[in-house]
Protein backbone atom coordinates (compact mmCIF):
# COMPACT_ATOMS: atom_id res chain seq x y z
CA UNK A 1 0.00 0.00 0.00
CA UNK A 2 1.19 3.48 -0.75
CA UNK A 3 0.74 6.21 1.81
CA UNK A 4 0.15 9.71 0.67
CA UNK A 5 0.92 12.69 2.87
CA UNK A 6 -2.72 13.22 3.79
CA UNK A 7 -2.81 9.86 5.47
CA UNK A 8 -4.99 7.90 3.06
CA UNK A 9 -3.66 4.58 1.91
CA UNK A 10 -3.93 4.11 -1.80
CA UNK A 11 -3.96 0.52 -2.98
CA UNK A 12 -1.50 -0.15 -5.75
CA UNK A 13 -3.18 -1.24 -8.93
CA UNK A 14 -1.44 -4.38 -10.14
CA UNK A 15 -0.06 -4.33 -13.63
CA UNK A 16 -1.32 -6.77 -16.21
CA UNK A 17 2.10 -8.42 -16.11
CA UNK A 18 1.85 -9.00 -12.36
CA UNK A 19 -1.66 -10.39 -12.68
CA UNK A 20 -0.57 -12.77 -15.42
CA UNK A 21 2.35 -13.99 -13.32
CA UNK A 22 -0.01 -14.64 -10.40
CA UNK A 23 -2.50 -16.35 -12.70
CA UNK A 24 0.32 -18.61 -13.89
CA UNK A 25 0.72 -19.69 -10.26
CA UNK A 26 -2.95 -20.65 -10.19
CA UNK A 27 -4.41 -17.52 -8.62
CA UNK A 28 -7.88 -17.43 -10.21
CA UNK A 29 -8.75 -14.07 -8.66
CA UNK A 30 -5.73 -12.48 -10.32
CA UNK A 31 -6.82 -14.00 -13.61
CA UNK A 32 -10.33 -12.61 -13.14
CA UNK A 33 -8.86 -9.17 -12.60
CA UNK A 34 -6.78 -9.52 -15.73
CA UNK A 35 -9.91 -10.50 -17.68
CA UNK A 36 -11.73 -7.45 -16.36
CA UNK A 37 -8.90 -5.14 -17.42
CA UNK A 38 -8.47 -6.55 -20.91
CA UNK A 39 -11.85 -7.89 -22.07
CA UNK A 40 -12.82 -4.65 -23.83
CA UNK A 41 -9.90 -4.55 -26.26
CA UNK A 42 -10.03 -8.33 -26.77
CA UNK A 43 -13.74 -8.16 -27.61
CA UNK A 44 -13.30 -5.19 -29.92
CA UNK A 45 -10.56 -6.94 -31.86
CA UNK A 46 -12.61 -10.13 -32.04
CA UNK A 47 -15.57 -8.17 -33.41
CA UNK A 48 -13.37 -6.38 -35.93
CA UNK A 49 -12.02 -9.64 -37.34
CA UNK A 50 -15.08 -11.90 -37.16
CA UNK A 51 -17.63 -9.21 -38.00
CA UNK A 52 -20.39 -10.59 -35.79
CA UNK A 53 -21.23 -10.70 -32.08
CA UNK A 54 -21.78 -14.46 -31.80
CA UNK A 55 -18.36 -15.32 -33.18
CA UNK A 56 -16.75 -12.51 -31.20
CA UNK A 57 -18.19 -14.02 -28.03
CA UNK A 58 -16.73 -17.45 -28.89
CA UNK A 59 -13.38 -15.83 -29.52
CA UNK A 60 -13.58 -13.96 -26.21
CA UNK A 61 -14.08 -17.21 -24.30
CA UNK A 62 -11.50 -19.21 -26.24
CA UNK A 63 -8.94 -16.43 -25.85
CA UNK A 64 -9.07 -16.42 -22.09
CA UNK A 65 -9.14 -20.20 -21.81
CA UNK A 66 -6.05 -20.36 -24.02
CA UNK A 67 -4.42 -17.51 -22.11
CA UNK A 68 -4.92 -19.19 -18.75
CA UNK A 69 -3.43 -22.43 -20.02
CA UNK A 70 -0.51 -20.63 -21.64
CA UNK A 71 0.14 -18.28 -18.73
CA UNK A 72 2.73 -20.56 -17.21
CA UNK A 73 4.74 -20.52 -20.43
CA UNK A 74 4.68 -16.73 -20.83
CA UNK A 75 8.24 -15.57 -20.44
CA UNK A 76 7.64 -11.87 -20.78
CA UNK A 77 8.98 -11.63 -24.34
CA UNK A 78 6.36 -8.99 -24.95
CA UNK A 79 4.14 -7.21 -22.52
CA UNK A 80 0.90 -8.87 -21.52
CA UNK A 81 -1.50 -6.84 -23.62
CA UNK A 82 0.07 -7.63 -27.02
CA UNK A 83 0.47 -11.26 -25.93
CA UNK A 84 -3.23 -11.49 -25.15
CA UNK A 85 -4.21 -9.74 -28.36
CA UNK A 86 -2.01 -12.14 -30.33
CA UNK A 87 -3.97 -15.04 -28.86
CA UNK A 88 -7.25 -13.24 -29.58
CA UNK A 89 -6.21 -12.50 -33.14
CA UNK A 90 -5.23 -16.11 -33.77
CA UNK A 91 -8.57 -17.34 -32.44
CA UNK A 92 -10.51 -14.74 -34.40
CA UNK A 93 -8.90 -15.49 -37.74
CA UNK A 94 -9.37 -19.22 -37.14
CA UNK A 95 -13.09 -18.62 -36.67
CA UNK A 96 -13.25 -16.20 -39.60
CA UNK A 97 -11.55 -18.60 -41.99
CA UNK A 98 -13.90 -21.39 -41.00
CA UNK A 99 -16.78 -19.17 -42.06
CA UNK A 100 -15.23 -18.13 -45.37
CA UNK A 101 -17.32 -19.45 -48.22
CA UNK A 102 -15.66 -21.48 -50.92
CA UNK A 103 -14.09 -19.31 -53.56
CA UNK A 104 -14.09 -16.23 -51.36
CA UNK A 105 -10.71 -14.79 -52.04
CA UNK A 106 -9.31 -12.57 -49.34
CA UNK A 107 -6.77 -10.35 -51.01
CA UNK A 108 -5.48 -7.98 -48.41
CA UNK A 109 -3.34 -5.78 -50.60
CA UNK A 110 -5.75 -4.77 -53.32
CA UNK A 111 -4.71 -4.23 -56.88
CA UNK A 112 -6.57 -0.91 -56.70
CA UNK A 113 -3.96 1.79 -56.73
CA UNK A 114 -3.69 4.36 -54.01
CA UNK A 115 -4.93 7.17 -56.22
CA UNK A 116 -8.23 5.56 -57.07
CA UNK A 117 -8.64 4.77 -53.39
CA UNK A 118 -7.93 8.43 -52.71
CA UNK A 119 -10.51 9.55 -55.23
CA UNK A 120 -13.10 7.25 -53.65
CA UNK A 121 -12.20 8.87 -50.32
CA UNK A 122 -12.84 12.34 -51.69
CA UNK A 123 -9.38 13.41 -52.78
CA UNK A 124 -9.82 16.09 -55.40
CA UNK A 125 -13.57 16.26 -54.84
CA UNK A 126 -15.64 19.36 -54.18
CA UNK A 127 -16.48 18.33 -50.61
CA UNK A 128 -13.70 16.37 -48.94
CA UNK A 129 -14.80 17.75 -45.57
CA UNK A 130 -17.70 15.31 -45.68
CA UNK A 131 -15.59 12.42 -44.35
CA UNK A 132 -14.60 14.44 -41.28
CA UNK A 133 -18.18 15.48 -40.55
CA UNK A 134 -19.52 11.96 -40.93
CA UNK A 135 -16.73 10.51 -38.78
CA UNK A 136 -17.93 12.62 -35.83
CA UNK A 137 -21.15 10.62 -35.80
CA UNK A 138 -20.37 7.43 -33.92
CA UNK A 139 -23.12 5.41 -35.59
CA UNK A 140 -22.06 6.43 -39.08
CA UNK A 141 -18.45 5.64 -38.22
CA UNK A 142 -19.47 2.20 -36.90
CA UNK A 143 -21.47 1.44 -40.06
CA UNK A 144 -18.57 2.49 -42.26
CA UNK A 145 -16.16 0.32 -40.26
CA UNK A 146 -18.50 -2.66 -40.63
CA UNK A 147 -18.23 -2.43 -44.39
CA UNK A 148 -14.47 -2.75 -44.48
CA UNK A 149 -12.65 -6.00 -45.23
CA UNK A 150 -11.58 -7.69 -41.99
CA UNK A 151 -7.87 -7.06 -42.44
CA UNK A 152 -8.53 -3.33 -42.84
CA UNK A 153 -10.89 -3.24 -39.88
CA UNK A 154 -8.35 -5.15 -37.81
CA UNK A 155 -5.50 -2.72 -38.38
CA UNK A 156 -7.63 0.37 -37.84
CA UNK A 157 -8.97 -1.15 -34.62
CA UNK A 158 -5.49 -1.78 -33.28
CA UNK A 159 -3.85 1.45 -34.38
CA UNK A 160 -6.61 4.04 -34.36
CA UNK A 161 -9.25 2.71 -31.95
CA UNK A 162 -7.01 0.93 -29.41
CA UNK A 163 -4.24 3.46 -30.00
CA UNK A 164 -1.45 0.89 -30.11
CA UNK A 165 1.95 2.14 -31.28
CA UNK A 166 2.95 1.43 -34.86
CA UNK A 167 5.79 -0.93 -33.96
CA UNK A 168 3.53 -2.92 -31.66
CA UNK A 169 0.86 -3.21 -34.35
CA UNK A 170 3.44 -4.32 -36.92
CA UNK A 171 4.74 -6.98 -34.55
CA UNK A 172 1.26 -8.19 -33.69
CA UNK A 173 0.37 -8.52 -37.36
CA UNK A 174 3.69 -10.10 -38.28
CA UNK A 175 4.48 -7.30 -40.71
CA UNK A 176 7.56 -5.21 -41.33
CA UNK A 177 6.95 -1.62 -40.30
CA UNK A 178 6.70 -0.21 -43.86
CA UNK A 179 4.20 -2.93 -44.80
CA UNK A 180 2.12 -2.11 -41.72
CA UNK A 181 2.14 1.58 -42.58
CA UNK A 182 1.13 0.85 -46.15
CA UNK A 183 -1.80 -1.35 -45.09
CA UNK A 184 -2.83 1.20 -42.45
CA UNK A 185 -2.89 4.02 -44.98
CA UNK A 186 -4.96 1.98 -47.43
CA UNK A 187 -7.32 1.01 -44.63
CA UNK A 188 -7.84 4.60 -43.57
CA UNK A 189 -8.53 5.69 -47.14
CA UNK A 190 -10.92 2.77 -47.56
CA UNK A 191 -12.69 3.85 -44.38
CA UNK A 192 -12.95 7.40 -45.72
CA UNK A 193 -14.42 6.01 -48.95
CA UNK A 194 -17.01 4.04 -46.93
CA UNK A 195 -17.87 7.19 -44.99
CA UNK A 196 -18.53 9.01 -48.23
CA UNK A 197 -20.79 6.21 -49.40
CA UNK A 198 -22.76 6.16 -46.14
CA UNK A 199 -24.53 9.34 -47.16
CA UNK A 200 -26.18 7.59 -50.09
CA UNK A 201 -27.66 4.83 -47.94
CA UNK A 202 -28.82 6.88 -44.96
Amino acid sequence: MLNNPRGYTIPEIPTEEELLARAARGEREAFSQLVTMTRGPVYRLALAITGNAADAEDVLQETYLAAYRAAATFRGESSTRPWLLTIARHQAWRVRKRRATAGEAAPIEDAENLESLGVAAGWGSANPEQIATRAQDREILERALERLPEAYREIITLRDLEGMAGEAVAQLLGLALPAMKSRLHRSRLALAACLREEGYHA
Partner: protein
Amino acid sequence: MHNERVAGGLRCSEVLGMLSEYADGELGPETRERIEAHLAECDNCLRFGGSFQQLLSAMAANRAPVEPPTAVLDRLALRLSESLPEG
Protein backbone atom coordinates in the same frame (compact mmCIF):
# COMPACT_ATOMS: atom_id res chain seq x y z
CA MET B 1 -9.94 12.76 -62.51
CA HIS B 2 -7.84 14.56 -60.00
CA ASN B 3 -5.48 17.17 -61.36
CA GLU B 4 -1.92 16.15 -60.69
CA ARG B 5 -0.11 19.29 -59.66
CA VAL B 6 3.43 19.83 -58.62
CA ALA B 7 3.83 22.21 -55.71
CA GLY B 8 6.60 22.43 -53.16
CA GLY B 9 8.51 19.95 -55.30
CA LEU B 10 5.94 17.19 -54.72
CA ARG B 11 3.16 15.79 -56.88
CA CYS B 12 -0.32 15.58 -55.38
CA SER B 13 -0.19 11.78 -55.61
CA GLU B 14 3.02 11.75 -53.58
CA VAL B 15 1.41 13.87 -50.88
CA LEU B 16 -1.59 11.55 -50.88
CA GLY B 17 0.74 8.61 -50.30
CA MET B 18 2.33 10.26 -47.27
CA LEU B 19 -0.75 11.60 -45.51
CA SER B 20 -0.86 8.92 -42.82
CA GLU B 21 2.80 9.29 -41.94
CA TYR B 22 2.40 13.06 -41.94
CA ALA B 23 -0.63 12.94 -39.66
CA ASP B 24 1.10 10.42 -37.36
CA GLY B 25 4.20 12.62 -37.05
CA GLU B 26 6.45 9.99 -38.58
CA LEU B 27 8.14 12.10 -41.23
CA GLY B 28 11.45 13.89 -40.90
CA PRO B 29 11.52 17.68 -40.88
CA GLU B 30 12.61 18.04 -44.53
CA THR B 31 9.79 15.93 -45.89
CA ARG B 32 7.31 17.67 -43.59
CA GLU B 33 8.40 21.05 -44.91
CA ARG B 34 8.01 19.92 -48.51
CA ILE B 35 4.51 18.66 -47.78
CA GLU B 36 3.61 21.90 -46.05
CA ALA B 37 4.97 23.85 -49.02
CA HIS B 38 2.74 21.75 -51.27
CA LEU B 39 -0.30 22.30 -49.06
CA ALA B 40 0.34 26.05 -49.08
CA GLU B 41 -0.10 26.05 -52.85
CA CYS B 42 -2.58 23.24 -53.44
CA ASP B 43 -6.09 23.74 -52.17
CA ASN B 44 -7.20 20.21 -53.13
CA CYS B 45 -4.53 18.55 -51.02
CA LEU B 46 -4.95 21.03 -48.19
CA ARG B 47 -8.66 20.35 -47.89
CA PHE B 48 -8.38 16.60 -48.27
CA GLY B 49 -5.38 16.43 -45.93
CA GLY B 50 -7.22 18.44 -43.30
CA SER B 51 -10.28 16.26 -43.58
CA PHE B 52 -8.16 13.11 -43.38
CA GLN B 53 -6.53 14.36 -40.18
CA GLN B 54 -9.92 15.16 -38.71
CA LEU B 55 -11.01 11.59 -39.46
CA LEU B 56 -8.03 10.31 -37.45
CA SER B 57 -8.85 12.72 -34.62
CA ALA B 58 -12.45 11.55 -34.59
CA MET B 59 -11.29 7.96 -34.20
CA ALA B 60 -8.85 8.94 -31.46
CA ALA B 61 -11.73 10.63 -29.65
CA ASN B 62 -13.68 7.37 -29.95
CA ARG B 63 -11.19 5.38 -27.92
CA ALA B 64 -13.47 4.73 -24.99
CA PRO B 65 -13.17 1.04 -24.14
CA VAL B 66 -15.87 -1.11 -25.66
CA GLU B 67 -17.14 -3.38 -22.91
CA PRO B 68 -18.86 -6.55 -24.04
CA PRO B 69 -22.59 -6.63 -23.23
CA THR B 70 -23.49 -7.82 -19.71
CA ALA B 71 -24.95 -11.09 -20.98
CA VAL B 72 -21.69 -11.83 -22.78
CA LEU B 73 -19.72 -11.13 -19.61
CA ASP B 74 -21.98 -13.40 -17.60
CA ARG B 75 -21.51 -16.25 -20.05
CA LEU B 76 -17.75 -15.63 -20.08
CA ALA B 77 -17.57 -15.83 -16.29
CA LEU B 78 -19.62 -19.04 -16.35
CA ARG B 79 -17.46 -20.66 -19.02
CA LEU B 80 -14.26 -19.75 -17.20
CA SER B 81 -15.53 -21.01 -13.87
CA GLU B 82 -16.56 -24.29 -15.50
CA SER B 83 -13.40 -24.83 -17.49
CA LEU B 84 -10.58 -23.55 -15.33
CA PRO B 85 -9.32 -25.19 -12.15
CA GLU B 86 -10.27 -23.55 -8.89
CA GLY B 87 -7.42 -21.50 -7.43
